[in-house]
């Protein structure tokens, strides 16, 4: 850990934060830009280290790590299911129901499938799933790891010859990735179902078969592949950013709240960036 993350400890980033305030706006913007780039570099390096540990230590201490991964999947996935179903129903009523009602008034049923796939399957579903996972589990990850860091648990693991990334980060990142992927699928299915329920209650002349047919014709194989990749990328990076901020730098207990806010903001920023990247891929598909 010392070797792997030493560059994060004494980095230019610390110097940038401690340096006197710049005199001009351009200096201020320059410093902000450098800070963002250095943070991106740190997160990128941390992601690569974590991936390398996942691959290299696949069979190291499975009796310890595998139950932890299962626990994290339950924490980031199964236990959040009721909340996700509630949000999915609300999303279905608010977004799908209203869209279909408006489309019915305009007689534009042919566009319902395209609108549903674009809004729910490609955009709102994965993004909302990631943001909810961040709020419920990601923030808790930062607090948990930041407290462990501040209490010296990381040094204790190193002294026992246990790789802190393998023990603390890998289960959380795998749990978050699989949890966000599964919850995205459930959220989209539940939102589409509840949306039709709202349409049915409004007496719109749209049969279930027509509704399903519209959806089916608008969905291509690329949608399934990109949805899986996108939700996994959201989960992976939410896990990485939260663990990076909790673990990769020396913390005191009073720093934990500040770091949690910072990690949450950066997670949203990263998710928006990933979303933009996938938007380009959708346009090309």
């Amino acid at each position: 850990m010392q070797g792997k993350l030493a560059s994060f400890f004494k980095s230019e980033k610390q110097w940038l934060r401690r340096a006197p305030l710049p005199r001009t706006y351009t200096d201020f913007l320059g410093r902000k830009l450098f800070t963002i780039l250095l943070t991106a570099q740190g997160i990128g390096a941390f992601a690569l280290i974590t991936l390398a540990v996942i691959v290299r230590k696949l069979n190291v201490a499975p009796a310890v790590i595998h139950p932890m991964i299962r626990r994290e999947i339950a924490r980031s996935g199964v236990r959040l299911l009721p909340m996700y179903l509630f949000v999915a129903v609300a999303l279905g009523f608010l977004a799908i129901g209203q869209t279909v009602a408006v489309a019915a008034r305009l007689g534009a049923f042919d566009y319902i499938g395209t609108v549903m796939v674009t809004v729910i399957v490609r955009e709102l579903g994965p993004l909302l799933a990631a943001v909810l996972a961040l709020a419920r589990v990601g923030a808790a990850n930062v607090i948990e790891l930041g407290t462990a860091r501040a209490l010296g648990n990381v040094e204790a693991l190193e002294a026992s010859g246990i790789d802190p990334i393998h023990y603390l980060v890998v289960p959380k990142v795998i749990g978050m990735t699989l949890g966000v992927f599964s919850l995205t699928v459930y959220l989209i299915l539940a939102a589409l179902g509840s949306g039709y329920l709202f349409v049915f209650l409004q007496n719109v002349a749209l049969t279930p078969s027509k509704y399903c047919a519209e959806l089916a014709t608008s969905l291509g194989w690329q949608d399934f592949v990109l949805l899986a990749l996108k939700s996994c990328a959201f989960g992976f990076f939410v896990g990485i950013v939260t663990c990076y901020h909790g673990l990769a730098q020396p913390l005191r207990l009073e720093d934990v709240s500040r770091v949690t806010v910072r990690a949450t903001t950066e997670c949203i920023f990263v998710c928006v960036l990933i979303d933009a990247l996938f938007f380009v891929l959708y346009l090309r598909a």
Partner: protein
Amino acid sequence: MNNEKPKQSPKTAGAPVVPIEMRGVAMGAIADPDFLVLKDVNWTVASGDFWVVGAPQNSGKSDFLMTTAGLMPPVGGSYKFFGSPTRIFDESRLADRLRVGFIFEQSELFHYLTVAENVALPLRYHHNLPVDEAMAAIDDLLGLTELRPVADVRPPDLAQSWQKRAGLARALALCPDILLADNPLGALDSRHCHWFRRFLDELSLGHKWCRNKPLTIVVTTDDFRHWRGGRFQFALLKEKSFVPLGSWNQVLASEEPLVKELLAAPMAEVGK
């Protein structure tokens, strides 16, 4: 897990390998590795030695032990661990790292694990044991350290003295060759203090938990009085220097003011 000992050259094959040998070592602080805590440390620890290193608070005792444990690299100089040049015990030196047991001053136990789970963690991880088997394996250790009654308690619900015992038990879980203890008697009541010192004495002479193998022990302290009368070797961290003092009698005879402070001598005597 690779437990191979370092190879010896034919010339030194008969000679005992020195566990810790430092020549001109400079050490940084863990919070800021560029800040020099100690410089020009020349120190040799023979197998079975019991060293007591004294220093006031905030003078780099923890950094000294962490560098010795290979948790952070020395800033300069030559550090040999069982004859092998060492900077930090990375993954390629896992076997060496597991030869060192480390007791932290604040114990540093995981608060979400019970005492037994904390103690069993190194054993479970390195031997890939399920919970039940690991618990059976550490049951004797919990008994030896009198931790059985609190085995299912989480550390925040325990007094600091018991947390320190749990830290000791965790450090011993893998039967190390060297035990490094950061101020183990600090903030202990007299009963626990007496127990801790007696147990470390037994470990140093050879304890049944470690298959009667005498442990090499290094402890730090901010009060020499706890270590009076033993067969220990004493040293002092003073103004970024490592100063060997010798036996207890030599400590008592020392005119060094800092030594007198660590012996809690009357202030008039300290000023002499």
